[in-house]
């Protein structure tokens, strides 16, 4: 009953015993009797899906749980019971001896202060350095975490940095006082694959150089193998399995572990039938955002997508891959005419869309539908799921009455494998995966020929991702749909796409049949992407 303490003999740096976190007001138990040990210099991965309570561990250790949380059990750090400490005493430990890196690189830094100031904060608070000393040390730290031009970046503000750079700053802050323990809560999740790889490498390197103990919290098992010596799997606030990482991957015991390991989207896309009709043809598509107007002059326009040609046939899936800012989403919006700044020729089934105004375009729109990345943001919070799904019918089949629309909604729910009875709920009552199914149903109910899927799985857990991929594949087979699949996730693209188009800075880098591009990339950029994605390395059985 104590699977966490694998090395009971060794003195552990961090030791959790019977740790429980409850939210009595909401009636939720986030953590339940958790035992864990972490030795000096060791890396422990804490894995679980969203809602498993893994982030609560980080917050409980750092004393950052919300006021209404009830904490039970003990948290000992280097012999000190943290749960009993006064706030000033706790403040002498956190930031000084325990560092914490959060997931949200975009929001975890105070947007109002320069990064130099922020890195200097713990140094001044815990090391008693004056401003100049702290800044000098901050510059060293930025160099340590591999930020280029560290000296000039000290006065930069968070919004002037990229996601990867911000995460480096976060790490620099966490490491500023040379802590014994670094807790990294999903530090790479929101980053591009190439950046992800760099951050992981950085963490591994720092750990080796500074002798840190690392508590690495993630939902992505593939990352674990690269970095962690031991792994613990959480489910619904309980520890279901723990042990050396290699053993866990080789011989998973708990069903939850097995499920996580099998989460990689499997299977490959079947071939497109010969002579399938062309659904969409694009020539020279470009998206140029106008430059800001300044006093007496305008900035040059910013080119998000430059000169892309594309032909999509019925039943075909074209995967568009690239890092954030590569213009792949702009391309997707341009193709379905949702991008006012788009230029170039787009033909949909013999109709030249570029010549049509908004009103003339409307009746054609049912033929091509988008699905967006953020399943919450793409559903109006004030309509029920059923209303959302049938909204297109109001436009394209206005003769339907409410009852028949409702019946169609029920059908559509069945098709995307949702409980039809749930169609009267509001979006917030659904999980992320379910919301994405609603978004898919909204598109499918119009029986489109082309669906532009813009990162439809990126915000979802791996296991949910797998199910959505399966759903998309089935729908394609059933209706002969054409997909334009936009993603930064090569594993998903490999499972779905016939053809891959690699974009960088809005330009085409490489294009070809999926297996060719992913297995024998010609361009250096593609190679870097593929290498960083580590397609089969992370999972033994994949």
């Amino acid at each position: 009953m104590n699977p966490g303490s694998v090395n009971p003999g060794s003195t552990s740096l961090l030791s959790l015993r019977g740790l429980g976190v409850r939210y009595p007001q909401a009636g939720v138990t986030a953590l339940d009797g958790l035992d864990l040990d972490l030795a000096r210099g060791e890396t422990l991965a804490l894995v679980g899906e969203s809602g498993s309570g893994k982030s609560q561990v980080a917050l409980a250790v750092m004393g950052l749980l919300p006021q209404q949380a009830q904490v039970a059990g003990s948290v000992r750090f280097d012999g000190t019971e943290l749960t009993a400490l006064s706030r000033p005493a706790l403040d002498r430990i956190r930031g000084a001896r325990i560092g914490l890196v959060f997931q949200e690189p975009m929001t975890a830094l105070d947007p109002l202060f320069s990064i130099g100031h922020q890195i200097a904060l713990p140094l001044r608070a815990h090391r008693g350095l004056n401003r100049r000393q702290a800044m000098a040390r901050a510059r060293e730290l930025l160099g340590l975490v591999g930020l280029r031009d560290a000296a000039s970046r000290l006065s930069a503000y968070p919004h002037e940095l990229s996601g990867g750079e911000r995460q480096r700053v976060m790490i620099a802050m966490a490491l500023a006082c040379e802590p014994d323990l670094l807790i990294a809560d999903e530090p790479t999740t929101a980053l591009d694959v190439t950046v992800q790889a760099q951050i992981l490498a950085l963490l591994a390197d720092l750990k080796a150089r500074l002798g840190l103990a690392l508590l690495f919290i993630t939902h992505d098992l593939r990352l674990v193998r690269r970095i962690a010596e031991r792994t613990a799997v959480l489910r619904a606030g309980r520890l279901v399995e723990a042990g050396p990482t290699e053993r866990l991957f080789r011989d998973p015991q708990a069903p939850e572990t097995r499920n996580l390991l099998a989460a990689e989207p499997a299977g490959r896309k079947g071939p497109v039938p010969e002579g399938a009709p062309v659904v969409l043809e694009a020539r020279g598509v470009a998206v140029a955002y106008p430059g800001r107007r300044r006093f007496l002059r305008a900035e040059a326009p910013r080119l998000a997508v430059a000169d892309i040609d594309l032909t999509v046939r019925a039943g075909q899936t074209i995967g568009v891959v690239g890092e954030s800012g590569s213009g792949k989403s702009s391309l997707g919006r341009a193709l379905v005419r949702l991008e006012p700044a788009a230029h170039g020729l787009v033909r949909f089934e013999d109709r030249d869309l570029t010549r049509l105004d908004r009103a003339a375009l409307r009746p054609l729109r049912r033929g091509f539908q988008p699905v967006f990345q953020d399943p919450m943001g793409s559903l109006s919070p004030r309509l029920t799921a059923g209303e959302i799904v049938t909204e297109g019918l109001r436009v394209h089949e206005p003769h339907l009455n409410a009852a028949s629309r409702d019946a169609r909604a029920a059908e559509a729910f069945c098709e995307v494998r949702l409980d039809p009875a749930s169609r009267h709920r509001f979006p917030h009552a659904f999980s992320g995966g379910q919301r994405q199914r609603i978004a898919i149903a909204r598109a499918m109910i119009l029986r489109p020929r082309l669906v532009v899927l813009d990162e439809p799985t990126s915000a979802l857990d791996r296991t949910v991702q797998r199910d959505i991929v399966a759903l998309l594949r089935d729908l394609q087979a059933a209706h002969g749909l054409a997909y334009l699949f936009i993603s930064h996730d090569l594993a998903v693209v490999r499972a779905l796409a016939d053809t891959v188009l690699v974009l960088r800075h809005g330009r085409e880098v490489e294009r070809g049949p999926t297996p060719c591009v992913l297995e024998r990339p010609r361009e250096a950029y593609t190679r870097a992407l593929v290498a960083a994605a580590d397609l089969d390395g992370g999972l033994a059985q994949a």
Partner: protein
Amino acid sequence: MSQSAASHPLAWAEASLLARARRRLVGDRLARASAALLLLVALACLVGPFVTGHPYDRLYYDYPGTPPSLALYPKPASVRPALDRLAFRMRVRAEDVAVTGDAVRLTLASDKPVDSRVLTFFSRSDTFGEARILGRSEDGRRLAVEAPLRSLRFLAGTDTLGRDLLTRTLVAGRLSLALGLLATAVALGIGVIYGALAGTLGGRVDAAMMRLVDILYSLPFVFFVIMLVVFFGRSVALIFVAVGAVEWLDMARIVRAEAQGIRRRDYVRAAEALGLSTAAILRRHVVPNLLGPVVAFAALMVPRVILLESFLSFLGLGVQEPATSWGVLIADGARSLETAPWMLVVPAAFLVATLVALTLLAERLRDALDPREGA
């Protein structure tokens, strides 16, 4: 509020938005109290004037400036002066006065024969009822009469002209609330449409529309309102339609900012992709999602309008007779603060209670209308 949320999570999700909001409000003690208070005030204003027993425009010539009291008038001590005043008006003398419980007996004396028609003065006075002749002297110069005392109660006192303040306050409440709602409705209508249009259309149209708002913002509000009063002085409703037409600026700004945010949301993109027209997108997606902040702002605007009316009354430009409003009563009351404090306290209590309740309710309503809250 979270208790009911936790116990019926499904019922929550499936109820319609408004029903949900209502349930959440009902679960909130403060919201419940505020709503109850508002309802009570509204009901009192609607029904109260029929119940107080005084017409709101009735002048009690015998009771100007009476302080609030539970006691019945006339008080025994004031019967005699009232009689003397009455006798003076009848050009007779009041003699042998005896107050017996709820009636008064006296003899009217004069140097010439007393015309019994003078007795109508009794029934016309506020102190006495219809008088009865008990006897008459031979020369007709003395007339013994008995008149019942008329019992009056002024719970909140009377104003300078002897009008019942409670009744007036309640009648005033009707107008103040109606004006607040009217002006808010106008501001709401213009502001939401204007702001949502600007925010949704964006680009140059938006810039031009917001420029107009900026310009109107730079006008001194007081000057503008005074001009409106000067132009539309005869019609209070028109003034407040105009006030609403000025007050919409803030609303338009808020709505525009929100609409801009909503326009960037994927669900609006999705709606466009589904082929919804701009009008339909506005109607089905933009406006409903604006509801929270708009409702809250609207509820805060009602107090602002009512206060504005009171400011106009302070300047002497408020609602005119025979109508009255809380603003007018408070402005009057503020002037006679030292001499007749009840003239301020009574209407101010109604006003403040209403506005505080309205504001609190607005905040709760905004929270309750937020579908993400408590999810």
